[in-house]
């Protein structure tokens, strides 16, 4: 146990976490130079393409220091706020954390909230300035930020470059010398925490865990304490570049268990594994049943593909238990599913995975949060879909979820960021200067406002120099109204949204304008209206297409024009006919991208 080191990495997106992790794997000989590819640990295509980590990963490395051999377990965590619960569990599985900060950019909001999590969990923090090879690195300034933030000694801050390999050895040395070895009673009953799981089509669910006390052996009968389910440990082992079987694992170890589980939802991140006979009296603290934060309808573009979509969603759920869905129907879109997501990125990823891995073309409707509607007769109803909101006459009140939003930006942009947050119904709670030109502001605001084009606007008002993080703080009563969208007089339920009454007029106008740009012209005029109940608050018209002809068409034009017209027809196949109006997929998410 004394030569095990369990650590994770805390970093903002693009601060070079994966590159530095690749270097650690390479230096310790865990992966051969031949097998090394960028972002070795991220095995999903989406992760590599977007440069993000969605799932947690774990990998074991060996390293010698001062004549002793050590086992290092790196637990790689997602960096996005949507996955903050997973991050918290990964952090809880470690004794130390590398805090990687881009020396050219300094500390970002996401880093800070994960850092606080690590500090709360008593992790030893090893700050590392990455990208030191870049001429724009400003180590002194960033060191000031780090010193102030965690109160460490300046000389304890390491300098490195994942790109050139500079400083990687000193990072390894620091992990061994500064991260404490695991503690825990190796003779006590088994107590292991699940921090992630993956789906393997041949083996079923593979759960990753960390043992806090006791030990586990192959073929042991085990119990997952929160779900209450019992299994046999068919296979256990450690996570090298490929899983390696072991006969037993002990206190402090990080490993995996395969026990014939078919459904991802049986394996909950944060759950405690113990022995069926001689169970531990106390489950590991901090377990939460993750609840979806954002809901949206997902419909097949082609109505015949409903069953296929259901199959695909079920398969996706096998390896992503945080996805929830139930059938719903829409007058405009037919049969589909109302899905729950951890956040907006999660929603995007699910949609992308459906298209890539299952070849489904889907329409995602306007996302919304979960509302609490208090009705006069039946009491509390949870509303996950604007169409389910009871009539105003039947309603007592509606509550919506609020969050604490933390934004770190340059002081130059503070004015713009604040007016954006205020426009988004935010209330300023706190404002702290981290350094002379970096400021952290905290707002209380409705989660629903984050769903509506917040990220893009924040990015543009801050010219990209703002980072954002949030945590839910409960429900508050709000003056909400349901805004409907009508196309040629027909209400399109999939475009309805619950919005704050004060924003209705400006939002209605913007949505109609956006839809006018997105809906292609057809052979007749298309009226786009926004309405509150029977009252029309905005109107735009897509003028009829009265001319669509190529003037010249000679030798060279023929191929080019043919391809253009073919593309046009293919594009139309991806549209959805509502009444007599052809509506493109993108229109259903129009409200998310209002300028």
């Amino acid at each position, binding site marked *: 146990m004394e030569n095990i080191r369990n650590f994770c990495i805390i970093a903002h997106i693009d601060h070079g976490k994966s590159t530095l992790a690749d270097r650690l794997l390479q230096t310790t000989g865990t992966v051969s130079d031949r097998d090394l590819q960028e972002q070795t640990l991220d095995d999903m295509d989406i992760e590599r393409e977007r440069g993000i980590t969605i799932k947690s990963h774990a990998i074991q490395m060996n390293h010698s220091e001062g004549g002793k051999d050590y086992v290092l377990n790196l637990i790689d965590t997602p960096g996005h706020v949507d996955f903050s619960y997973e991050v918290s569990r990964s952090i809880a599985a470690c004794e130390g954390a590398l805090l990687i900060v881009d020396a050219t950019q300094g500390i970002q909001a996401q880093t800070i909230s994960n850092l606080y999590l690590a500090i709360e969990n008593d992790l030893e923090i090893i700050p590392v300035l990455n990208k030191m090879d870049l001429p724009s690195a400003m180590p002194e300034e960033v060191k000031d930020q780090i010193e102030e933030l965690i109160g460490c000694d300046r000389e304890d801050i390491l300098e490195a470059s994942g790109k050139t390999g500079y400083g990687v050895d000193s990072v390894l040395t620091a992990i061994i010398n500064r991260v404490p070895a695991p503690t825990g009673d190796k003779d006590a009953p088994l107590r292991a925490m699940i921090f992630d799981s993956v789906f393997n089509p041949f083996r079923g669910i593979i759960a990753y865990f960390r043992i806090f006390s006791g030990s586990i052996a192959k073929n042991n009968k085990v119990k997952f304490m929160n779900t209450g389910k019992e299994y046999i440990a068919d296979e256990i082992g450690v996570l090298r570049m490929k899983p390696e079987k072991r006969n037993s694992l002990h206190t402090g170890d990080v490993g995996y268990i395969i026990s014939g589980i078919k459904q991802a939802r049986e394996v909950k991140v944060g759950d405690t594994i113990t022995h069926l006979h001689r169970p531990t009296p106390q489950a590991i603290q901090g377990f939460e049943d993750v609840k979806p934060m954002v809901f949206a309808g997902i419909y097949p573009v082609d109505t015949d593909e409903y069953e296929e979509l259901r199959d695909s969603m079920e398969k996706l759920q096998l390896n992503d238990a945080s996805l929830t869905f139930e059938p719903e129907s829409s007058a405009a879109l037919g049969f589909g599913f109302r899905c729950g997501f951890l956040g907006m990125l999660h929603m995007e990823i699910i949609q992308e995975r459906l298209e890539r891995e299952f070849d489904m073309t889907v329409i995602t409707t306007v996302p919304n949060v979960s509302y609490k509607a208090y009705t006069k007769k039946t009491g509390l109803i949870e509303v996950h879909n604007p169409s389910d909101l009871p009539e105003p006459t039947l309603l007592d009140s509606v509550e919506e979820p609020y969050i604490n939003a933390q934004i770190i930006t340059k002081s130059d942009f503070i004015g713009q960021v604040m007016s954006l947050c205020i426009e988004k119904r935010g209330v300023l709670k706190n404002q702290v200067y981290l350094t002379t030109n970096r400021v952290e502001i905290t707002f209380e605001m409705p989660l629903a406002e984050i769903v509506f084009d917040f990220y893009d606007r924040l990015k543009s008002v801050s010219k990209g120099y703002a980072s954002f993080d949030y945590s839910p703080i409960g429900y508050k009563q709000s003056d909400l109204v349901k805004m409907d969208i009508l196309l040629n007089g027909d209400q399109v339920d999939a475009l309805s949204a619950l919005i704050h009454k004060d924003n209705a007029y400006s939002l209605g106008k913007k949505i109609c304008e956006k839809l006018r740009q997105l809906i292609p012209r057809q052979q007749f005029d298309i009226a786009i209206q926004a309405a509150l109940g029977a009252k029309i608050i905005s109107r735009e018209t897509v003028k009829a297409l009265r001319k669509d*002809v190529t003037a010249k068409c000679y030798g060279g034009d023929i*191929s080019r024009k043919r391809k253009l017209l073919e593309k046009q027809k293919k594009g139309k196949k991806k549209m959805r006919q509502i009444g007599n109006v052809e509506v493109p997929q993108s229109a259903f998410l129009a409200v998310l991208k209002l300028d």
Partner: protein
Amino acid sequence: MAGLYIHIPFCHKACPYCDFYFLTNQKWKAPFIEALEGEIHDRAEELEIPIESIYFGGGTPSMLVPEEMARILECIEGHFGRSNEIELTIEANPEDLSEKNLESWKQCGINRLSIGVQTLNEEKLKGLGRNHKVQDSIEGLERAQRLGFGNISVDLIFATGDEKDLDSELDDYLRLDVQHISAYGLTVEEGTPLARLVGKGRKTLVEDDEYRRQFLLIHEKLESAGFGHYEISNYAKDGFESRHNSSYWNRKAYLGLGPSAHSYRNNSRRWNESNLPNYCKQIQFEEEALSARDQFNEAIMTGLRQKRGVDLAELSERFPAATKSMIEQSEGFIQDNLMEKNDNFLRLSLEGMLMSDHICSELFWIDED
């Protein structure tokens, strides 16, 4: 019977709406002619003799001096033979219609002129950024007619936004006493100066309804003056339809020579790189074999551009299933009076012509992929 297209990539100056390939630097003329002769030599065997038409397009072919023109034609003759039956067209700018040029063209056997008149309204002409005056067009045309050119086409650009009195402009066109008129609605081509102006909002094109009004007016006036509306943008007196251009719409083989020129034969298209300096060194080109689906869609597109329409018997023989479902699809358009079907030909009505892209696209054969 096949056609030959020669692209002459030189212009006096750039027109803001044009996206054809050209240079204004004339130092490349000599190397170009040499390379062109090489290409004629290398590719002559691709076409069956005799050929039906030769077309000098550009650019501005009338920028070639008589000796250069004679040299190119001599080379063509050496490879393809000579016949008075060949339709031999040159595109000419009005300012180049000098007595000397016209005489020499006549001597080389050029029997058809396509004159870039563009408009007979001075203000509109200025707006189009052309080099000539209306008077140049009128005088040049008279000169050509006096010298015996009896097959002349003129261009008319409409829908520019400067049509104050299109009706009387059309009267002026009719007074020119030509055999062929190409009437094009101004189109914003990507990458042109016009596209940038429109993009910045400094130039607005006419609304759809105004475009329609002009298109219909042109049709009405030209047809009642005895011009047949034989292709969406082309009108001709009986027997003066452009043979060369018709070969594009009837899938006849043609060989395109010069930078950026396109060729078509045996269901394959080829296009030369749009780069004159490279052309002079070593001709680069791309080629595309047309799949059955491509061929079908081209047949729809080119057939529907013409008054004649799509020959359903012929199409059905080549693509029975696709033709059947296309005909089903066309029924809605027939009901809406956008298409007509008789004698086993399917064609666009006048209203349908105005929506031809939309209709073609709907009638295309698209793979389920």
